[in-house]
């Protein structure tokens, strides 16, 4: 309840600021860029200190991801390609963490890899967080048996193609330099045929589209994806064509995913901040336009 009041007073403060900006603009004194910047600093950072659960609805695309994941039976092998770097982490890392937590709780076997140089270290970061979870820690999972990180391989979509022949050809050893053949989890894993699902967290190229073109189209791989909000619209055509099973887009996609899997994480707290900043952007558009229309009429 307390949270609500704080949020409301925050809204009031930011609202008053916006009214002031509006007043100045209508008066014909277009405010300087720097004030817009300052306003955004407050809008983004203040809500981070507020604890409140915003109302979110799980969209069908995210629901499809969840259904794809929940339909996997224990022991199913999932290949997770982390094709992003730290700048995109605010959006994609929460998805990765929520997925990893869910998967490890439900005894899925996880094989991480990355087509971006920094992807595997994001995976390690996510794994560390997931393994610290009390339920997962109690399971005493071992590296190489329950999860493994194959590391990064350069070559973009050619890596995806070559993996259709054999994983080992692209990853002779894993991230910890253990030879492919001596990793128990990978025993019998030759190529995509032994993989039940590919999860792709993608911030650009190579990413989901390359996975679709080279793994889904060629090797009939089952693919679900999480994308940055920017990347997501480009994947929509493929979603509609059924080439990708579900899509999480941006931070709201991550928050919906956390909600649907019941794995509360960072996205759930970031989303409030995001909501405020969106509101600010929309208000800036409105203020700019109203002021512009009014001054035009005067002329």
């Amino acid at each position: 309840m307390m949270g609500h009041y704080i949020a409301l007073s925050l809204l009031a403060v930011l609202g008053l600021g916006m009214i002031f900006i509006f007043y100045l603009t209508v008066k014909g004194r277009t405010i300087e860029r720097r004030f817009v910047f300052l306003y955004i600093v407050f809008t983004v950072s203040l809500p981070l200190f507020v604890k409140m659960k915003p109302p979110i609805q799980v969209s069908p695309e995210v629901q499809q991801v969840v259904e794809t994941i929940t339909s996997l039976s224990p022991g199913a092998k999932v290949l997770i390609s982390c094709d992003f770097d730290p700048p995109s982490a605010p959006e994609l890392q929460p998805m990765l963490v929520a997925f990893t937590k869910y998967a490890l709780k439900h005894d899925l076997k996880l094989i991480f890899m990355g087509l971006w140089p920094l992807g595997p270290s994001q995976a390690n970061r996510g794994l560390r967080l997931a393994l610290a979870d009390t339920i997962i820690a109690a399971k005493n999972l071992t590296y190489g048996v329950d999860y493994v990180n194959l590391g990064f391989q350069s070559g973009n979509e050619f890596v995806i193609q070559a993996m259709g022949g054999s994983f080992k050809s692209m990853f002779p050893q894993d991230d910890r330099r253990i030879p492919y053949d001596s990793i128990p989890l990978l025993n019998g894993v030759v190529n995509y045929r032994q993989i039940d699902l590919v999860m792709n967290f993608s911030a650009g190229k190579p990413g989901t589209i390359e996975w679709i073109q080279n793994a889904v189209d060629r090797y009939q791989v089952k693919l679900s994806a999480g994308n940055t909000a920017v990347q997501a619209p480009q994947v929509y055509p493929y979603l509609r064509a059924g080439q990708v099973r579900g899509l999480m887009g941006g931070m709201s996609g991550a928050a919906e995913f956390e909600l649907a899997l019941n794995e509360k994480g960072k996205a759930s707290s970031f989303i409030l901040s995001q909501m405020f900043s969106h509101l600010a952007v929309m208000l800036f558009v409105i203020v700019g336009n109203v002021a512009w229309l009014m001054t035009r009429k005067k002329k």
Partner: protein
Amino acid sequence: MKREIPLIITFSVGVLLILSVFIPPTEHWGETFSLFFDIIAVFAFFLGGGNLVRTHISKLSGKKAGWVYSAVTLAAFFFMLAAGLFKIANIGGIGAPVTENGSLFQESFNYVMNPLGATMYALLAFFIASASYRAFRAKNREATILLVAAFIILLGRTPLGVAVTSWIPDSWDIFQIPNMAIWIMNSPNLAGQRAILIGIGLGVASMSLRVILGIERTYLGEDKG
């Protein structure tokens, strides 16, 4: 001679690579090219990197305006270069790759380059706000359409949009903003992207043909040299 050889190279390489797609034994030529490209790019880097170093050294030695920053640039460059090439304080010793976590090279990347990149990227948020305030005007019909579409998506993809139109009964759920946003993404947006993509496919084909046939050669010079 000087003039013809590049044109012949462009023509023959282009034609060969087009044909290679259709001939199974030569299918992998595209991959070989990307390997070639990576190798050529390294040699080109000697030119680019060398140019960078030369420019800053000349600024520094001439004490031109901003020479301090040139000094910083050079220092950062050689620091990274040394940390990487000589594997200074490398976690796995001289035999291990430099990108291992904990090595000086990788840690410099993690704590210097990474935050710099992420921050530069984050500046976009501010610029979006200022562009919204300054340039996003419904000046004409096209701009208005763009504005309205952007607005619906913005609203619809956030919890706010859910709250605004949740009173609309389920039989008319298409008019709930989140659903409208999804519809826009799936129908007109998808179609618009398709039209653009088809155009790009043809545009690229036509430009490639001009390049291969040697009609377009501004990048080489139809010079007298």
